[in-house]
């Protein structure tokens, strides 16, 4: 087994998988994208000089793979050339809720569904900040953004989630 693969798998597989799953909400697709992440890691590991942490480096690759996927998917779906503005592009969930989420409370399940209302950028920030517990600085490093951009996107994402979760809770009759 390739030693680079083994090292990254042992340390960060859970983070990579979880990130890609929350971005796609589809296990089969996540598995495909995970393969792509490892191929890119193995190919480019020689150039890794340790200036950032291995974790943020690996997650930035996962993030690139995810965005690449959405770009291709969007182009294919629309049968026209990509003009996606990632700030405005929403991911629609048509997949079943995974067992790990089903066992959670109703509120958490609704929140999981509300993630679809976020744009790709917003969802990435939510996953890194609240599911993977990265700091603002780490999230900025993974995304290659400024910290203030992370904060702004996070603020907007929370606003979107709050609005839609409140609507869902109202619909479900929770008071």
């Amino acid at each position, binding site marked *: 087994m390739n030693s680079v693969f083994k090292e990254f798998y042992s340390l960060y597989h859970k983070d990579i998988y*979880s990130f890609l799953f929350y971005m796609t909400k589809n296990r089969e697709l996540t598995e495909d994208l995970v*393969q792509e992440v490892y191929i*890119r890691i193995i*190919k480019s590991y020689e150039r890794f000089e340790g200036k950032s942490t291995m974790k943020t480096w690996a997650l930035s690759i996962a993030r*690139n793979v995810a965005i*690449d996927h959405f770009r291709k998917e969007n182009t294919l779906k629309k049968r026209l050339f990509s003009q996606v503005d990632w700030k405005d592009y929403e991911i629609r969930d048509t997949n079943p809720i995974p067992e790990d989420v089903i066992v959670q409370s109703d509120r958490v399940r609704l929140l999981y569904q509300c993630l679809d209302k976020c744009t790709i950028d917003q969802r990435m920030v939510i996953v890194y900040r609240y599911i993977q517990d990265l700091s603002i600085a780490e999230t900025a490093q993974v995304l290659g953004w400024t910290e203030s951009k992370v904060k702004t996107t996070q603020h907007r994402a929370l606003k979107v989630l709050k609005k839609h979760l409140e609507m869902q809770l109202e619909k479900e009759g929770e008071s």
Partner: protein
Amino acid sequence: MKKKNLSDSELIELLHQLPSVDDKRSMSEVYSSVIQKVNQENQKNTKKFKRYVLPAFATAACLVLGIIGLNYFNSTFNGFESADDNKNVDRSQDQINAIEPAADKPILGLVESPDNVQGNNGEKTGDPINDTLSLKINEEEWKTPVFEDSLNEGEYAVTLGLPDEQAQVFVPVSVIVKEVEGKNWLEQYNEIQNLINEEELGFSENYPLQANLFLDNQGNVNIDLYKNHSYSYGLTTETFLLKSIEVLRYINVKEIFLLENSVPGAYLSHIGDVNHFYTLNPEPKNAYFIFETNEKKYLCPSNISVNTINEALMKMKKEVPVDNLLPSIPNNISFTINSSDPSKLIISFDKGTILKETIENRIMIDAILLTAKDFGYQYVLFENINLDSIGPYDFSEAIKVPISPNLIGSYE
């Protein structure tokens, strides 16, 4: 029903409760799937190259048959047997063998080919999607050239070369790029190389090049071919490389430094040695024709050789079937050319010529301007036109030639 108001802290608490979804596969299962995918990519790349190698092989086979036939004809006609006949056949067979890729030559190198990932110092190194910039492809039915006034402040144009599906012609396509502080044009060019999807546009894959492109301290373009690059697999793939270099002339690149695995110069098995200093011809004397793919029209320099602008414009009235190129000038349009001024070409349409404001006529003007540029002219004056203008072209004065052909979109 009472509206439920959530506080931020409640929402964040709920977000923390979202589970970290686990992969149900074992490490060895994941590893096997990675290896399988690498193998699939290798096979896919091999097939792609075979597609281009096959025509080259067929050409070589024809040459061999020709040589055999010629030898047979000579020996029969001269009435004696040549002792070299067998040697000739053997030599020709060697030529065929040389065109076929070596079975053990890797196409997808795991180490030598850098990937589209974020560098560990926070810099982008060929990131497939930039955080703030994206490649937006326009959907115009025909692709207009890029002119100086197409560019706003802080913008410039870059050009890439896309091979058609049969890899017979190379269509230069341009993208308007928004300058970004801290990045030079070649860094942005590298980003676009990773973003462009040739197959979706109806072309064959060419980018990213199997090379590291960078500017040295003097601002010279360096193209350092990866150790296991595949350009030497056939004349077609070698042409891919050279044409990809040649389109840089539209960006005003006059020469490049070519390296192979960081060693100056390169050896291509069919073309031979290519110098470290590779000069780009700013006036390659091309005639531009219409090329159509995915129901979009482009203007494409042809492979046909022309010596004068007059000859080029005459050829542009007829299609080039072998390259699937269509005429860019209607056959019924007649004009005379005054090429005495080295910077300004004057085209006088024949008396009685009636032009209408149609796409065909707009394309004709585009094609003439691009052709004039490739012959070194800076301006073209159109005379005896019944219209004052067609599209943006004002015929009352000489029109400046474009920067580059086929604007396909923007990187902003």
